[in-house]
């Protein structure tokens, strides 16, 4: 891991040492802004830190570990869209305020799905809307904003129907829009995958710690080989997915989507087992393990389903063989 990435990780863990540290959405938003996260992916020429995608990948993992509330992932999408868009009057101001933490939201579904799963749409001023035809920033004044409450309570999601006649800032159109949209979907998948791996790592550690302290039949649960082997399998799945994640930050959108599907499946699998490892106590709201389970499921459903991405990936494999 590079110096830069280790620094990002260290500073994140100092501010958000565990999932509890980030639960105040407003405070953690300010902390993220202070850590410079919203500047991270913006080129230095545009006033940002000019970090690469694999540096952002570290941030995404830390957000998952902290079970970060708020619309940060949407913010990264909006910033990326602004960075990629050709210059236009007011772009610099917009970018500056977004880097400082003024929220621009966006749907956490992939382009082509509904404008749903939009975090904090009720407090954001603008929303990034992307399709293969155009990418625009739309003012949310007068929009119809319907709550989309999920079992995961860490993200406040909404369904949005913008008002027809509000100001729109076009960022891309035509083939440029298609390319930008693909790029943004890829970033979304990278973000969700990182979130999944950070969360999985946190909840696996939580479960293993629990097994080490909880005793049954005069020994810690962690001494039972059947549980040890299942924990080991989860660790293998997690490490394997993490290696893929680290190697994929610059990958093509399709590969990022398939990678997201893989990582989110691992998160779900780890969280599902973590609840079982906790036994009855894991079924009570007093223990945090369920919070990760619910986020794991939500992550899996955001950014395109596994069915969609795996089918696309399978199509690509088919092309390896000459068609008769």
């Amino acid at each position, binding site marked *: 891991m590079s110096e830069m990435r280790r620094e990002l990780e260290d500073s994140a863990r100092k501010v958000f040492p565990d999932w509890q540290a980030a639960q105040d959405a407003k405070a953690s938003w300010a902390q993220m802004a202070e850590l410079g996260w919203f500047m991270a992916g913006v080129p230095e020429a545009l006033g940002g830190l000019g970090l690469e995608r694999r540096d952002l990948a570290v941030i995404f993992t830390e957000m998952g570990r902290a079970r970060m509330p708020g619309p940060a992932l949407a913010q990264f999408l909006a910033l990326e869209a602004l960075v990629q868009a050709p210059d236009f009057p007011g772009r610099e101001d917009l970018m500056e305020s977004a880097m400082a933490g003024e929220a621009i939201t966006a749907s956490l*579904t992939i382009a082509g*799905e509904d404008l*749903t*799963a939009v975090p904090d749409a009720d407090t954001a001023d603008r929303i990034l809307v992307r399709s293969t035809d155009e990418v625009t920033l739309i003012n949310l004044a007068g929009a119809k904003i319907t709550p*989309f*409450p*999920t*079992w*995961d309570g860490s993200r406040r999601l909404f369904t949005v129907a913008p008002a027809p006649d509000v100001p729109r800032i076009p960022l891309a159109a035509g083939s440029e829009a298609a390319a930008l949209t693909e790029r943004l979907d890829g970033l979304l998948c990278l973000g969700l995958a990182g979130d999944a791996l950070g969360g999985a790592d946190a909840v696996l550690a939580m479960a293993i710690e629990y097994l080490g302290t909880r*005793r*049954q*039949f*005069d*020994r810690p649960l962690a001494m*039972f080989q*059947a*549980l040890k082997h299942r924990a080991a399998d989860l660790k293998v799945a997690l490490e394997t997915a993490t290696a893929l994640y680290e190697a994929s930050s610059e990958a093509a959108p399709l590969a990022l989507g398939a990678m997201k599907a893989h990582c989110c499946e691992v998160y779900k699998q780890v969280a599902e087992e973590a*609840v*079982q490892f906790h*036994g*009855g106590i*894991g*079924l*009570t*709201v*007093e223990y945090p393990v*369920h919070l990760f*389970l*619910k986020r794991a*499921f*939500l992550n899996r*459903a*955001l950014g395109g*389903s*596994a*069915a969609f991405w795996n089918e696309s990936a399978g199509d690509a494999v088919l092309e390896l063989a000459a068609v008769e």
Partner: protein
Amino acid sequence: MTQEDDALRREIRDWIAREAPRDWRTASTHEAFVASQRSWFAKLVAAGYAVPHWPREWPGGGRSLAEQKIIYEELARADTPRLLLSFVSTYHAFATLAECASAQQRSHYLPRILEGETWCQGFSEPGAGSDLAAIRSRAERRGDVYVVSGQKVWSTMAQYADMCLLLVRTSADGPKQAGLTYLLMDMRLPGVSVRPIHQIQGDEEFAEIFLDEVEIPVAQRVGEEGAGWAVAQATLASERGLTLMELSYRMRGAMVRLSEAVHAAGRTCDAGVLRKLGALATRVDAVCALADRFLQKRMDEDERVGDASIVKLAYSRCLRAWTDLGVELADLAGQMHAPITFGDLNSGNWMADFMNSYAWTIAGGSDEVQRNIIAERMLGMPREPKNWITEAGQ
């Protein structure tokens, strides 16, 4: 199937068509759910279907296991409300009273059960889940009373219970199991407090019971002091496999939920989805057949050690797979929070169903405990040593 069986089936089917509530899924509060449970139980008592497993002298009692099976099959098939609130009363309390209690205790409590008095079970404790011998709640005899302090957990619907089947420790010496004593505790006694457990899917099906110097008359003891372990075995053996059969049938009946989910997702022509659906349906059929066969073995007195564990494990894993497929099919829409349907394990509110399924992989002997039983007592693989010398690393 005999002609009598057939007649019973027709009789109960007709009765259900007339009497069964159809709106039980609409209860939006625990209180409304409990009220609907009470009224449904009263109806079943009146019709003679509530306690078919009790002796003949009770209304509707004296039914064979085969007849009991028919009753539960029909109740499941018609999607009537599950009998949650009265379960401990009619099975656990009944068996304990019938097999181990004094004549006086029996004649006092059994009629009240049919009148709607409900019981809860006070066995599990924090730190003593699957390992009952580790119970620590302490009862000290002072004259005519036991003074009991301690904590019980995972007691089903204890917040609505009138009475409690309480297992406590009267002696800390000797073998752990020999120090346990069994008491019938009135939940209204001073020193008893109950706190519902907030579950992750929004239910409060279980509660904790805190006991602070509760004075329980010695006359409320079942069996001798120190004989609690044996009485507890009678309590636990009271359910003879009907529940898992009933639940398996309900799961099969609810395959329509999965079918609806496929339609709703617009994936009726998706070969991959159809295959998962078909394989799962077959697995559900298999679990139903397994539960049937288990009951048949019990009727034939042909049961082997471990058979019950196999049924429980087969059901719990299949239920998980059932809910898992639902969550997957519902995709993002399935992530939207919706209030739960009390008492329904196969509601089609997929995330709630998924989380509910842990009740069956964890409670009543976790999947892990069942696997131990199957491996050791059925497959003859060696037990874990009970005492081991732990070394300080290599």
